[in-house]
Protein backbone atom coordinates (compact mmCIF):
# COMPACT_ATOMS: atom_id res chain seq x y z
CA UNK A 1 0.00 0.00 0.00
CA UNK A 2 1.82 3.02 -1.25
CA UNK A 3 0.77 5.92 0.77
CA UNK A 4 1.84 8.52 3.20
CA UNK A 5 -0.02 7.75 6.32
CA UNK A 6 -1.99 10.39 8.09
CA UNK A 7 0.40 12.28 10.18
CA UNK A 8 -0.47 11.81 13.77
CA UNK A 9 1.38 14.89 14.61
CA UNK A 10 2.02 15.39 18.23
CA UNK A 11 3.96 18.49 17.71
CA UNK A 12 4.82 20.30 20.84
CA UNK A 13 4.98 23.70 19.48
CA UNK A 14 8.05 25.73 19.27
CA UNK A 15 7.03 29.07 20.51
CA UNK A 16 10.15 29.54 22.44
CA UNK A 17 11.76 32.84 22.54
CA UNK A 18 12.97 35.57 24.74
CA UNK A 19 10.79 37.30 27.19
CA UNK A 20 10.83 40.99 27.43
CA UNK A 21 12.32 42.94 30.19
CA UNK A 22 12.33 46.65 29.88
CA UNK A 23 15.50 48.33 30.84
CA UNK A 24 15.89 51.96 31.50
CA UNK A 25 19.07 52.79 29.86
CA UNK A 26 20.68 55.50 31.83
CA UNK A 27 20.17 57.94 34.63
CA UNK A 28 16.99 56.11 35.47
CA UNK A 29 15.48 57.54 32.32
CA UNK A 30 12.12 55.96 31.76
CA UNK A 31 13.07 55.30 28.21
CA UNK A 32 11.90 52.71 25.79
CA UNK A 33 12.44 49.26 27.11
CA UNK A 34 14.92 46.90 25.62
CA UNK A 35 13.90 43.31 25.35
CA UNK A 36 16.13 40.48 26.34
CA UNK A 37 15.35 37.94 23.70
CA UNK A 38 17.02 35.14 25.48
CA UNK A 39 16.12 31.60 26.35
CA UNK A 40 16.32 28.29 24.53
CA UNK A 41 15.48 27.87 20.88
CA UNK A 42 13.06 25.33 19.45
CA UNK A 43 13.01 22.80 16.63
CA UNK A 44 11.04 23.24 13.44
CA UNK A 45 8.89 20.16 13.71
CA UNK A 46 9.97 17.95 16.59
CA UNK A 47 8.49 18.04 20.02
CA UNK A 48 10.43 20.16 22.46
CA UNK A 49 10.50 20.40 26.22
CA UNK A 50 8.59 23.64 26.39
CA UNK A 51 5.31 23.61 28.24
CA UNK A 52 2.80 26.38 27.97
CA UNK A 53 2.64 28.90 30.79
CA UNK A 54 -0.21 28.42 33.19
CA UNK A 55 -3.35 30.11 31.97
CA UNK A 56 -1.98 30.82 28.51
CA UNK A 57 -3.50 29.61 25.26
CA UNK A 58 -1.73 28.85 22.04
CA UNK A 59 -3.15 28.86 18.53
CA UNK A 60 -1.20 26.98 15.93
CA UNK A 61 -1.27 26.32 12.21
CA UNK A 62 1.01 24.16 10.12
CA UNK A 63 1.44 22.97 6.58
CA UNK A 64 3.54 19.94 5.67
CA UNK A 65 3.64 19.80 1.89
CA UNK A 66 5.23 16.56 0.64
CA UNK A 67 6.26 16.31 -3.01
CA UNK A 68 7.04 12.83 -4.23
CA UNK A 69 9.52 11.36 -6.61
CA UNK A 70 7.85 9.71 -9.57
CA UNK A 71 9.25 6.80 -11.51
CA UNK A 72 6.75 5.55 -14.09
CA UNK A 73 5.60 8.09 -16.69
CA UNK A 74 2.89 5.74 -17.83
CA UNK A 75 1.27 5.44 -14.40
CA UNK A 76 -0.67 7.93 -12.31
CA UNK A 77 1.63 8.04 -9.30
CA UNK A 78 1.31 10.00 -6.09
CA UNK A 79 2.18 13.60 -6.80
CA UNK A 80 1.91 15.40 -3.50
CA UNK A 81 0.29 15.34 -0.10
CA UNK A 82 -0.54 18.36 1.98
CA UNK A 83 -1.07 17.98 5.68
CA UNK A 84 -2.69 21.07 7.11
CA UNK A 85 -3.06 21.35 10.82
CA UNK A 86 -4.91 23.70 13.12
CA UNK A 87 -4.25 23.42 16.80
CA UNK A 88 -5.03 24.91 20.15
CA UNK A 89 -3.15 24.39 23.38
CA UNK A 90 -3.57 25.54 26.92
CA UNK A 91 -1.34 25.61 29.96
CA UNK A 92 -3.39 24.22 32.83
CA UNK A 93 -0.52 24.31 35.30
CA UNK A 94 3.09 25.46 34.96
CA UNK A 95 4.00 21.87 34.17
CA UNK A 96 0.99 20.49 32.31
CA UNK A 97 -0.27 21.53 28.91
CA UNK A 98 -2.90 19.98 26.69
CA UNK A 99 -3.42 20.32 22.96
CA UNK A 100 -6.08 19.56 20.40
CA UNK A 101 -5.32 19.40 16.68
CA UNK A 102 -7.61 19.28 13.67
CA UNK A 103 -5.87 18.06 10.51
CA UNK A 104 -6.98 18.60 6.95
CA UNK A 105 -5.36 16.38 4.34
CA UNK A 106 -4.99 16.57 0.61
CA UNK A 107 -3.57 13.58 -1.26
CA UNK A 108 -3.11 14.26 -4.89
CA UNK A 109 -2.06 11.84 -7.60
CA UNK A 110 -0.83 12.67 -11.02
CA UNK A 111 -3.57 13.21 -13.64
CA UNK A 112 -5.70 10.12 -13.94
CA UNK A 113 -5.09 9.05 -10.38
CA UNK A 114 -7.34 8.91 -7.34
CA UNK A 115 -7.29 11.80 -4.94
CA UNK A 116 -8.68 12.48 -1.52
CA UNK A 117 -9.09 15.47 0.68
CA UNK A 118 -10.92 16.35 3.87
CA UNK A 119 -10.76 16.77 7.61
CA UNK A 120 -9.00 13.84 9.23
CA UNK A 121 -8.97 12.39 12.73
CA UNK A 122 -8.51 14.98 15.43
CA UNK A 123 -5.60 14.39 17.73
CA UNK A 124 -5.06 15.32 21.35
CA UNK A 125 -2.05 15.42 23.57
CA UNK A 126 -1.18 15.98 27.19
CA UNK A 127 2.33 17.01 28.14
CA UNK A 128 4.07 17.02 31.51
CA UNK A 129 7.20 19.13 31.89
CA UNK A 130 9.97 18.54 34.36
CA UNK A 131 13.59 19.52 34.76
CA UNK A 132 16.81 18.58 36.48
CA UNK A 133 18.05 21.14 38.98
CA UNK A 134 19.76 19.38 41.85
CA UNK A 135 17.26 16.60 41.29
CA UNK A 136 14.26 16.04 39.09
CA UNK A 137 11.32 18.31 39.64
CA UNK A 138 8.28 19.57 37.82
CA UNK A 139 8.68 22.74 35.86
CA UNK A 140 8.05 25.59 38.28
CA UNK A 141 5.83 28.56 37.67
CA UNK A 142 8.74 30.91 37.25
CA UNK A 143 12.19 30.31 35.84
CA UNK A 144 15.10 32.62 35.25
CA UNK A 145 17.30 32.46 32.20
CA UNK A 146 19.73 30.54 34.36
CA UNK A 147 17.02 28.06 35.25
CA UNK A 148 16.23 27.66 31.58
CA UNK A 149 19.80 26.52 30.98
CA UNK A 150 19.07 23.40 33.01
CA UNK A 151 18.06 20.16 31.36
CA UNK A 152 14.34 20.22 30.69
CA UNK A 153 12.22 17.21 29.82
CA UNK A 154 8.70 16.33 28.95
CA UNK A 155 6.71 13.17 28.65
CA UNK A 156 3.68 13.35 26.48
CA UNK A 157 0.89 11.08 25.55
CA UNK A 158 -2.08 11.33 23.31
CA UNK A 159 -3.63 9.92 20.24
CA UNK A 160 -6.29 10.36 17.66
CA UNK A 161 -10.03 10.01 17.76
CA UNK A 162 -11.85 8.48 14.81
CA UNK A 163 -13.60 11.65 13.72
CA UNK A 164 -12.46 11.40 10.11
CA UNK A 165 -14.08 9.20 7.50
CA UNK A 166 -12.04 6.02 7.44
CA UNK A 167 -14.30 4.66 4.71
CA UNK A 168 -13.81 7.62 2.45
CA UNK A 169 -14.57 6.43 -1.09
CA UNK A 170 -12.31 7.46 -3.89
CA UNK A 171 -13.59 8.46 -7.30
CA UNK A 172 -13.78 4.86 -8.42
CA UNK A 173 -15.75 3.86 -5.34
CA UNK A 174 -12.87 2.05 -3.70
CA UNK A 175 -11.47 2.48 -0.21
CA UNK A 176 -7.74 2.95 0.08
CA UNK A 177 -6.77 3.13 3.74
CA UNK A 178 -3.72 5.14 2.74
CA UNK A 179 -6.02 7.80 1.37
CA UNK A 180 -8.75 7.54 3.96
CA UNK A 181 -9.53 10.44 6.24
CA UNK A 182 -9.14 8.51 9.44
CA UNK A 183 -7.82 5.38 11.05
CA UNK A 184 -11.25 4.12 11.99
CA UNK A 185 -10.21 3.53 15.57
CA UNK A 186 -8.24 5.53 18.09
CA UNK A 187 -4.48 5.50 17.89
CA UNK A 188 -2.17 6.09 20.84
CA UNK A 189 1.15 7.80 21.25
CA UNK A 190 3.77 8.21 23.89
CA UNK A 191 6.87 10.32 23.79
CA UNK A 192 9.75 11.89 25.63
CA UNK A 193 11.73 15.05 25.03
CA UNK A 194 14.95 16.44 26.43
CA UNK A 195 16.18 19.97 25.87
CA UNK A 196 19.39 21.69 26.94
CA UNK A 197 20.53 25.19 26.24
CA UNK A 198 24.17 24.52 25.52
CA UNK A 199 25.16 28.16 25.39
CA UNK A 200 23.45 31.50 25.19
CA UNK A 201 22.77 30.97 21.50
CA UNK A 202 22.73 27.21 20.99
CA UNK A 203 20.00 24.79 22.07
CA UNK A 204 19.92 21.02 21.76
CA UNK A 205 16.65 19.11 21.58
CA UNK A 206 15.83 15.43 21.48
CA UNK A 207 12.52 13.69 20.93
CA UNK A 208 11.72 9.99 21.11
CA UNK A 209 8.17 8.91 20.46
CA UNK A 210 6.02 6.10 19.17
CA UNK A 211 2.54 5.79 17.78
CA UNK A 212 0.54 2.57 17.79
CA UNK A 213 -2.57 1.81 15.81
CA UNK A 214 -5.45 -0.57 16.17
CA UNK A 215 -6.91 -2.81 13.56
CA UNK A 216 -9.97 -1.48 11.79
CA UNK A 217 -12.47 -3.31 9.62
CA UNK A 218 -13.31 -1.16 6.64
CA UNK A 219 -16.70 -1.00 4.94
CA UNK A 220 -15.38 -3.16 2.13
CA UNK A 221 -14.62 -5.94 4.61
CA UNK A 222 -10.88 -5.56 4.68
CA UNK A 223 -9.08 -5.38 8.00
CA UNK A 224 -5.99 -3.25 8.43
CA UNK A 225 -3.67 -2.27 11.22
CA UNK A 226 -1.11 0.35 10.41
CA UNK A 227 2.44 -0.35 11.47
CA UNK A 228 3.83 1.32 14.56
CA UNK A 229 5.72 4.56 14.00
CA UNK A 230 8.84 5.17 16.03
CA UNK A 231 10.67 8.49 15.93
CA UNK A 232 13.99 9.69 17.22
CA UNK A 233 14.61 13.33 16.41
CA UNK A 234 17.53 15.53 17.32
CA UNK A 235 18.01 19.20 16.60
CA UNK A 236 20.24 22.18 17.18
CA UNK A 237 18.87 25.71 17.19
CA UNK A 238 21.27 28.59 16.83
CA UNK A 239 20.18 32.11 17.64
CA UNK A 240 21.29 34.27 14.75
CA UNK A 241 19.86 37.63 15.55
CA UNK A 242 17.82 39.39 18.16
CA UNK A 243 16.41 42.89 18.05
CA UNK A 244 15.36 43.89 21.51
CA UNK A 245 13.51 47.05 20.55
CA UNK A 246 11.33 45.23 18.06
CA UNK A 247 11.04 42.03 20.10
CA UNK A 248 12.35 40.09 17.18
CA UNK A 249 14.53 37.02 17.10
CA UNK A 250 15.72 34.75 14.34
CA UNK A 251 17.10 31.24 14.83
CA UNK A 252 18.57 28.80 12.36
CA UNK A 253 17.78 25.17 13.01
CA UNK A 254 19.04 21.84 11.79
CA UNK A 255 16.93 18.86 12.63
CA UNK A 256 17.65 15.17 12.04
CA UNK A 257 14.63 12.88 12.15
CA UNK A 258 14.88 9.11 12.27
CA UNK A 259 11.60 7.37 11.49
CA UNK A 260 10.87 3.68 11.64
CA UNK A 261 7.52 2.56 10.27
CA UNK A 262 6.39 -0.96 10.91
CA UNK A 263 4.83 -3.02 8.21
CA UNK A 264 1.06 -2.72 7.95
CA UNK A 265 -0.96 -5.83 8.60
CA UNK A 266 -3.88 -6.37 6.25
CA UNK A 267 -6.32 -9.19 6.87
CA UNK A 268 -3.78 -10.71 9.23
CA UNK A 269 -0.92 -10.66 6.75
CA UNK A 270 1.96 -8.24 6.50
CA UNK A 271 1.32 -5.86 3.65
CA UNK A 272 3.79 -5.59 0.83
CA UNK A 273 5.29 -2.22 0.07
CA UNK A 274 4.82 -0.78 3.51
CA UNK A 275 7.16 0.22 6.27
CA UNK A 276 10.83 0.86 6.53
CA UNK A 277 13.40 3.12 8.13
CA UNK A 278 14.55 6.52 7.06
CA UNK A 279 16.46 9.56 8.12
CA UNK A 280 15.39 13.07 7.24
CA UNK A 281 17.32 16.29 7.52
CA UNK A 282 15.32 19.41 8.11
CA UNK A 283 17.18 22.71 8.00
CA UNK A 284 15.11 25.79 8.61
CA UNK A 285 14.53 29.09 10.28
CA UNK A 286 12.39 30.16 13.18
CA UNK A 287 11.32 33.73 13.65
CA UNK A 288 9.89 35.22 16.80
CA UNK A 289 8.02 38.47 16.84
CA UNK A 290 6.33 39.43 20.03
CA UNK A 291 4.06 36.60 21.05
CA UNK A 292 4.11 34.96 17.65
CA UNK A 293 6.48 32.44 16.15
CA UNK A 294 6.94 31.25 12.59
CA UNK A 295 9.02 28.33 11.41
CA UNK A 296 9.92 27.22 7.93
CA UNK A 297 12.09 24.42 6.64
CA UNK A 298 12.72 21.94 3.88
CA UNK A 299 12.79 18.30 4.87
CA UNK A 300 14.46 15.70 2.70
CA UNK A 301 15.16 12.00 3.17
CA UNK A 302 18.91 11.48 3.24
CA UNK A 303 18.94 7.78 4.09
CA UNK A 304 16.25 5.18 3.57
CA UNK A 305 15.80 1.47 4.10
CA UNK A 306 12.29 0.84 2.90
CA UNK A 307 10.95 -2.68 3.04
CA UNK A 308 10.13 -2.84 -0.68
CA UNK A 309 11.59 0.38 -1.90
CA UNK A 310 10.83 -0.28 -5.55
CA UNK A 311 7.13 -0.44 -4.78
CA UNK A 312 6.77 2.35 -2.29
CA UNK A 313 6.38 5.38 -4.48
CA UNK A 314 4.38 7.99 -2.61
CA UNK A 315 5.29 6.80 0.83
CA UNK A 316 7.53 8.21 3.54
CA UNK A 317 11.11 8.11 2.39
CA UNK A 318 10.17 8.63 -1.23
CA UNK A 319 9.72 12.38 -1.10
CA UNK A 320 11.62 14.82 -3.23
CA UNK A 321 11.20 17.17 -0.32
CA UNK A 322 8.70 18.26 2.26
CA UNK A 323 8.08 21.94 2.75
CA UNK A 324 7.19 22.61 6.36
CA UNK A 325 5.84 25.91 7.60
CA UNK A 326 4.09 26.71 10.85
CA UNK A 327 2.95 29.66 12.87
CA UNK A 328 1.70 30.11 16.38
CA UNK A 329 0.49 32.83 18.66
CA UNK A 330 0.31 32.78 22.42
CA UNK A 331 -2.10 34.87 24.40
Amino acid sequence: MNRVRFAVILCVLGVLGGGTFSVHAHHGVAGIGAAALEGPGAPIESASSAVLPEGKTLLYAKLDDARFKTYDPSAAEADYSQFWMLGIGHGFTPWFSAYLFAPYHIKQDEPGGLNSRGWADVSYMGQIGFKYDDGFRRVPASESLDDLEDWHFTVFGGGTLPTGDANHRLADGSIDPGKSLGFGRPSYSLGFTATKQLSRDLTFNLEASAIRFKEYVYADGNRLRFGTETRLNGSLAQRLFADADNRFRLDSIIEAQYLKIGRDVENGVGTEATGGRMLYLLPGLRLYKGGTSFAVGIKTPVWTRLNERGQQQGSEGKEKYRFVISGSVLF
Partner: protein
Amino acid sequence: MRQTLLLFFLLPALPALAHDLWLEREATGITLYQGHKYSGHSSHGGAETIPYDAAFVKDALCLDAGGRTQPLALTKLAPWRTATADCAAIRVAASSGYWTKTPWETKNVPKADVAGAIKSWLSEESVKRIDSWRPGADRPLSNGLEITPTLDPLAIKPGDKLVVLVTDHGQPSAGVPVAYGGEIRGATGADGRIALRLRQGGMQMIAASVETPLTDGKADVAIRSAILQFELAK
Protein backbone atom coordinates in the same frame (compact mmCIF):
# COMPACT_ATOMS: atom_id res chain seq x y z
CA MET B 1 1.60 32.39 35.89
CA ARG B 2 4.80 30.99 34.64
CA GLN B 3 7.15 33.75 33.69
CA THR B 4 9.68 31.97 31.63
CA LEU B 5 11.65 34.06 29.26
CA LEU B 6 11.13 31.71 26.43
CA LEU B 7 7.70 33.20 25.89
CA PHE B 8 7.26 36.73 24.83
CA PHE B 9 5.32 37.77 27.82
CA LEU B 10 5.47 41.33 28.73
CA LEU B 11 7.03 41.40 32.10
CA PRO B 12 7.18 44.29 34.46
CA ALA B 13 9.69 46.88 33.62
CA LEU B 14 13.16 46.69 35.00
CA PRO B 15 14.49 50.15 35.29
CA ALA B 16 18.19 49.61 35.16
CA LEU B 17 20.37 51.53 37.42
CA ALA B 18 21.46 54.97 36.41
CA HIS B 19 24.82 54.28 37.97
CA ASP B 20 25.98 51.45 40.12
CA LEU B 21 26.18 51.96 43.82
CA TRP B 22 28.71 49.87 45.66
CA LEU B 23 30.32 49.68 49.03
CA GLU B 24 34.08 49.46 49.00
CA ARG B 25 35.98 47.95 51.89
CA GLU B 26 39.03 50.14 52.50
CA ALA B 27 41.64 50.60 55.19
CA THR B 28 39.60 53.36 56.79
CA GLY B 29 36.33 51.52 56.74
CA ILE B 30 33.61 51.06 54.16
CA THR B 31 32.81 53.74 51.60
CA LEU B 32 29.81 54.23 49.33
CA TYR B 33 30.68 54.91 45.73
CA GLN B 34 28.63 55.67 42.68
CA GLY B 35 29.81 54.99 39.17
CA HIS B 36 30.50 52.21 36.76
CA LYS B 37 33.28 50.18 38.28
CA TYR B 38 31.38 46.91 38.05
CA SER B 39 28.92 47.60 35.27
CA GLY B 40 31.61 47.80 32.64
CA HIS B 41 30.37 50.90 30.94
CA SER B 42 30.77 54.60 31.43
CA SER B 43 29.64 57.71 29.69
CA HIS B 44 31.36 60.03 32.07
CA GLY B 45 34.69 60.44 30.41
CA GLY B 46 35.80 57.06 31.55
CA ALA B 47 35.53 57.94 35.21
CA GLU B 48 35.11 54.94 37.46
CA THR B 49 33.37 56.87 40.18
CA ILE B 50 30.98 59.79 40.03
CA PRO B 51 30.73 62.33 42.85
CA TYR B 52 27.52 62.79 44.77
CA ASP B 53 26.27 65.13 47.46
CA ALA B 54 26.15 64.13 51.10
CA ALA B 55 22.36 64.59 50.97
CA PHE B 56 22.22 61.76 48.45
CA VAL B 57 22.50 59.21 51.25
CA LYS B 58 19.25 58.81 53.17
CA ASP B 59 19.74 55.84 55.40
CA ALA B 60 22.39 53.32 56.45
CA LEU B 61 21.99 50.11 58.40
CA CYS B 62 24.39 47.56 59.82
CA LEU B 63 23.71 43.93 60.60
CA ASP B 64 26.01 43.22 63.50
CA ALA B 65 27.56 39.94 64.50
CA GLY B 66 24.70 39.24 66.87
CA GLY B 67 22.11 39.49 64.13
CA ARG B 68 20.83 42.90 65.24
CA THR B 69 20.17 45.68 62.77
CA GLN B 70 21.69 48.98 63.84
CA PRO B 71 21.52 52.38 62.16
CA LEU B 72 24.77 53.86 60.97
CA ALA B 73 25.45 57.57 61.13
CA LEU B 74 25.00 59.67 58.04
CA THR B 75 27.89 61.94 57.23
CA LYS B 76 27.98 65.60 56.24
CA LEU B 77 30.63 64.92 53.67
CA ALA B 78 30.58 62.79 50.59
CA PRO B 79 31.38 60.09 49.90
CA TRP B 80 29.58 58.42 52.74
CA ARG B 81 31.93 56.35 54.86
CA THR B 82 31.72 54.33 58.02
CA ALA B 83 34.61 53.18 60.13
CA THR B 84 32.53 50.39 61.61
CA ALA B 85 34.32 47.18 60.86
CA ASP B 86 32.16 44.55 62.47
CA CYS B 87 29.09 44.67 60.26
CA ALA B 88 28.22 41.36 58.63
CA ALA B 89 26.12 43.34 56.18
CA ILE B 90 25.58 46.99 55.43
CA ARG B 91 22.66 48.51 53.54
CA VAL B 92 22.73 52.10 52.34
CA ALA B 93 19.72 53.83 50.78
CA ALA B 94 20.09 56.91 48.63
CA SER B 95 18.04 59.15 46.41
CA SER B 96 19.00 61.62 43.74
CA GLY B 97 15.50 63.10 43.92
CA TYR B 98 13.17 64.05 41.12
CA TRP B 99 14.14 63.99 37.48
CA THR B 100 12.30 65.42 34.52
CA LYS B 101 12.94 64.79 30.88
CA THR B 102 12.07 67.48 28.37
CA PRO B 103 12.61 67.53 24.62
CA TRP B 104 15.88 69.30 25.26
CA GLU B 105 17.38 67.89 28.42
CA THR B 106 16.96 65.87 31.57
CA LYS B 107 16.98 67.94 34.74
CA ASN B 108 17.20 66.97 38.37
CA VAL B 109 13.97 68.77 39.35
CA PRO B 110 10.27 67.93 39.78
CA LYS B 111 8.16 68.13 36.65
CA ALA B 112 6.36 71.26 37.84
CA ASP B 113 9.64 73.18 37.76
CA VAL B 114 10.23 72.87 34.03
CA ALA B 115 8.22 73.46 30.88
CA GLY B 116 7.63 70.74 28.35
CA ALA B 117 8.02 67.76 30.64
CA ILE B 118 7.84 64.48 28.77
CA LYS B 119 8.57 62.08 31.58
CA SER B 120 9.43 62.46 35.20
CA TRP B 121 10.45 60.16 37.98
CA LEU B 122 11.73 59.94 41.52
CA SER B 123 14.95 57.98 41.71
CA GLU B 124 15.68 55.90 44.79
CA GLU B 125 18.52 53.43 45.07
CA SER B 126 20.05 51.13 47.63
CA VAL B 127 22.95 48.77 47.97
CA LYS B 128 23.52 45.97 50.45
CA ARG B 129 26.94 44.48 50.92
CA ILE B 130 27.37 41.14 52.69
CA ASP B 131 30.78 40.36 54.12
CA SER B 132 29.95 37.44 56.37
CA TRP B 133 26.99 35.14 56.86
CA ARG B 134 25.49 35.76 60.25
CA PRO B 135 22.09 35.21 61.82
CA GLY B 136 19.65 37.63 60.28
CA ALA B 137 21.51 37.89 57.00
CA ASP B 138 18.83 35.74 55.38
CA ARG B 139 16.20 38.34 56.16
CA PRO B 140 15.74 41.83 54.73
CA LEU B 141 17.31 44.58 56.78
CA SER B 142 14.84 47.26 55.72
CA ASN B 143 11.31 47.88 54.51
CA GLY B 144 12.56 49.18 51.20
CA LEU B 145 13.22 47.30 48.02
CA GLU B 146 15.91 44.80 48.93
CA ILE B 147 17.59 41.66 47.65
CA THR B 148 18.41 38.98 50.19
CA PRO B 149 20.20 35.70 49.54
CA THR B 150 18.37 32.66 50.84
CA LEU B 151 21.62 30.96 51.78
CA ASP B 152 25.21 31.97 52.37
CA PRO B 153 26.27 33.58 49.10
CA LEU B 154 29.91 33.56 50.16
CA ALA B 155 29.87 29.77 50.10
CA ILE B 156 28.73 29.64 46.50
CA LYS B 157 31.19 28.46 43.88
CA PRO B 158 31.25 30.07 40.45
CA GLY B 159 28.94 28.08 38.22
CA ASP B 160 26.50 27.33 41.00
CA LYS B 161 23.10 28.90 41.44
CA LEU B 162 22.09 31.30 44.16
CA VAL B 163 18.45 31.86 45.03
CA VAL B 164 17.71 35.40 46.13
CA LEU B 165 14.57 36.88 47.61
CA VAL B 166 13.35 40.31 46.56
CA THR B 167 11.24 42.12 49.13
CA ASP B 168 9.44 45.40 49.25
CA HIS B 169 7.86 46.68 52.45
CA GLY B 170 9.24 43.55 54.03
CA GLN B 171 7.15 41.27 51.82
CA PRO B 172 8.18 39.07 48.88
CA SER B 173 7.77 40.99 45.67
CA ALA B 174 6.66 39.08 42.58
CA GLY B 175 7.45 39.88 38.99
CA VAL B 176 10.48 42.01 39.71
CA PRO B 177 13.12 41.79 36.98
CA VAL B 178 16.54 40.92 38.33
CA ALA B 179 19.90 41.45 36.64
CA TYR B 180 23.24 39.80 37.23
CA GLY B 181 26.47 40.84 35.60
CA GLY B 182 24.62 43.65 33.85
CA GLU B 183 22.16 41.30 32.16
CA ILE B 184 18.57 40.73 33.11
CA ARG B 185 18.19 37.09 34.04
CA GLY B 186 14.51 36.91 34.78
CA ALA B 187 11.75 38.03 37.08
CA THR B 188 10.92 36.92 40.58
CA GLY B 189 8.23 34.33 41.01
CA ALA B 190 5.14 34.59 43.16
CA ASP B 191 7.31 33.88 46.17
CA GLY B 192 9.64 36.77 45.37
CA ARG B 193 12.48 34.41 44.55
CA ILE B 194 14.69 33.91 41.56
CA ALA B 195 17.65 31.61 40.92
CA LEU B 196 20.79 33.07 39.38
CA ARG B 197 23.89 31.27 38.23
CA LEU B 198 27.01 33.04 39.47
CA ARG B 199 29.30 33.05 36.49
CA GLN B 200 32.67 33.96 37.89
CA GLY B 201 34.54 34.85 41.05
CA GLY B 202 35.24 38.34 42.31
CA MET B 203 32.72 41.02 43.12
CA GLN B 204 29.13 40.01 42.54
CA MET B 205 26.45 42.57 41.78
CA ILE B 206 22.79 41.54 41.63
CA ALA B 207 20.30 44.25 40.82
CA ALA B 208 16.53 44.61 40.92
CA SER B 209 14.29 47.51 40.18
CA VAL B 210 10.63 48.43 40.24
CA GLU B 211 8.64 51.29 38.85
CA THR B 212 5.48 52.47 40.57
CA PRO B 213 3.13 55.36 39.80
CA LEU B 214 3.42 58.49 41.92
CA THR B 215 0.55 60.73 42.92
CA ASP B 216 2.51 63.50 44.62
CA GLY B 217 2.38 65.69 41.55
CA LYS B 218 6.15 65.95 41.41
CA ALA B 219 6.80 63.03 39.08
CA ASP B 220 4.99 60.37 37.13
CA VAL B 221 6.67 57.38 38.70
CA ALA B 222 9.08 56.29 41.36
CA ILE B 223 11.95 54.17 40.09
CA ARG B 224 13.44 52.22 42.93
CA SER B 225 16.40 49.96 42.53
CA ALA B 226 18.37 47.70 44.83
CA ILE B 227 21.74 46.04 44.57
CA LEU B 228 23.06 43.03 46.43
CA GLN B 229 26.83 42.99 46.61
CA PHE B 230 29.22 40.34 47.86
CA GLU B 231 32.59 39.00 46.85
CA LEU B 232 33.64 35.49 45.90
CA ALA B 233 37.17 34.24 45.73
CA LYS B 234 38.55 34.46 42.20
